[in-house]
């Protein structure tokens, strides 16, 4: 880390810096960065802007920051709401911190830049198409033929539309996963009923894979391994709940149609 040139910071400036640090951490955590990255990146910003030391306490849905400067300490806390995984935001925040570390940005510029980051999102139809293709590719990797591929594409593309629609209306993610899995299973059970393709059960298995909670799971283990046990357990718990939500959706669809995959 670069050693910032010593400078005088007033009480107001210190408050401002602490606020920037807490906002950086909040944005990173909101958009799915692992705890170590959140901690490291935001404390680096604080040091770059001239604080003597930055202490951060992360919980599953809040961040508490203390900024020290010449014996004065300012503490603040923010509630962190999950805004969905967005690597674009994480990259942008990281870039701002790197620039600040090279002393290319001062406090005001950092503030300005942080506020200007918008949560970039891909065109929804592109996402629907690619996610449908992804699940179809899974069915191919598992050994399905082209009929299975096509059916999986249809089922998971429709499911993805439902998922986006519900997420757009700010529905609860667990509920969202349940409904999405229900739709995917309902459509793909048609493949089993009409016995399409070489292994119609594969359609049911592959079409719900768009619901794999990859980020929560991998972040959970990453947090665990790096000593952030509390946030790790929270992420693991959330991943489990999302899986349970999806499982309930699958169960309901199977109970209604009477079509079951394997076993």
């Amino acid at each position: 880390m670069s050693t910032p040139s010593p400078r005088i910071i007033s009480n107001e400036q210190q408050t401002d810096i602490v606020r920037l640090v807490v906002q950086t951490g909040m944005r990173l955590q909101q958009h799915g960065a692992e705890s170590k990255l959140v901690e490291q990146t935001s404390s680096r910003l604080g040091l770059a802007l001239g604080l003597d030391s930055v202490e951060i306490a992360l919980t599953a849905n809040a961040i508490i920051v203390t900024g020290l400067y010449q014996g004065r300490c300012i503490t603040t806390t923010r509630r962190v709401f999950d805004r969905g995984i967005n690597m674009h935001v994480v990259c942008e925040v990281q870039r701002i911190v790197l620039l600040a570390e090279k002393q290319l940005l001062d406090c005001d510029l950092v503030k300005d830049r942080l506020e200007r980051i918008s949560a970039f999102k891909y065109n929804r139809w592109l996402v629907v198409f690619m996610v449908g293709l992804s699940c179809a590719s899974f069915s191919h990797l598992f050994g399905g033929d082209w009929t299975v591929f096509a059916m999986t594409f249809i089922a998971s593309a429709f499911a993805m539309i439902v998922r986006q629609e519900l997420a757009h209306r700010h529905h609860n993610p667990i509920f969202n996963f349940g409904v999405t899995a229900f739709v995917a299973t309902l459509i793909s059970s048609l493949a089993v009923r009409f016995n399409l393709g070489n292994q119609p059960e594969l359609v049911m298995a592959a079409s719900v894979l768009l619901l794999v909670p990859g980020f929560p799971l991998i972040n959970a283990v990453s947090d665990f391994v790096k000593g952030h046990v509390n946030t790790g357990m929270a992420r693991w718990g959330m991943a489990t709940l999302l899986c349970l939500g999806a499982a309930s959706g699958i169960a309901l669809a199977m109970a209604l149609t009477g079509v079951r995959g394997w076993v």
Partner: protein
Amino acid sequence: MELFLSLVDDAFFSAIPAIGFALIFNVPKRMLVLCACGGAIAHSLRTLVMHSGVSIEWASLVASVTIGLIGVYWSRRYLVPRPVFTVASVIPMIPGTFAFKTIIGVFTLHDGGYSAEVMASVLENGLATLFILMALSFGLALPSILIYRFRPIV
């Protein structure tokens, strides 16, 4: 030759889900190619390692450690955090069928009552799911806990 063709097929059809999930995660545009490469490398490497007789968990670990290391290189080169590529790259290796079979097995146990076969299937599939998941996620974390213990990667 046949192995090579199947590896190419593998690589192609795992690059697609890597991109698909990268879109869900809103990975910046210029990183999408890297995600695709990562997904292709990881899954075909795993197939190759499994082909040489290693079990799926250890093969997954090898693949995810490789992706973790490649991720370190890319991360330093493009100055972005590592999860941006690595998570999407390992998604194609997520044990989807195992997990699905486990869940269906649990439902069957509940509805149809206990039977030793179903229980066996639940346990086998459940353990496979768990071990593969652990291998994947732990493998990704390995480079940063081994090499970059004291300083940030970027």
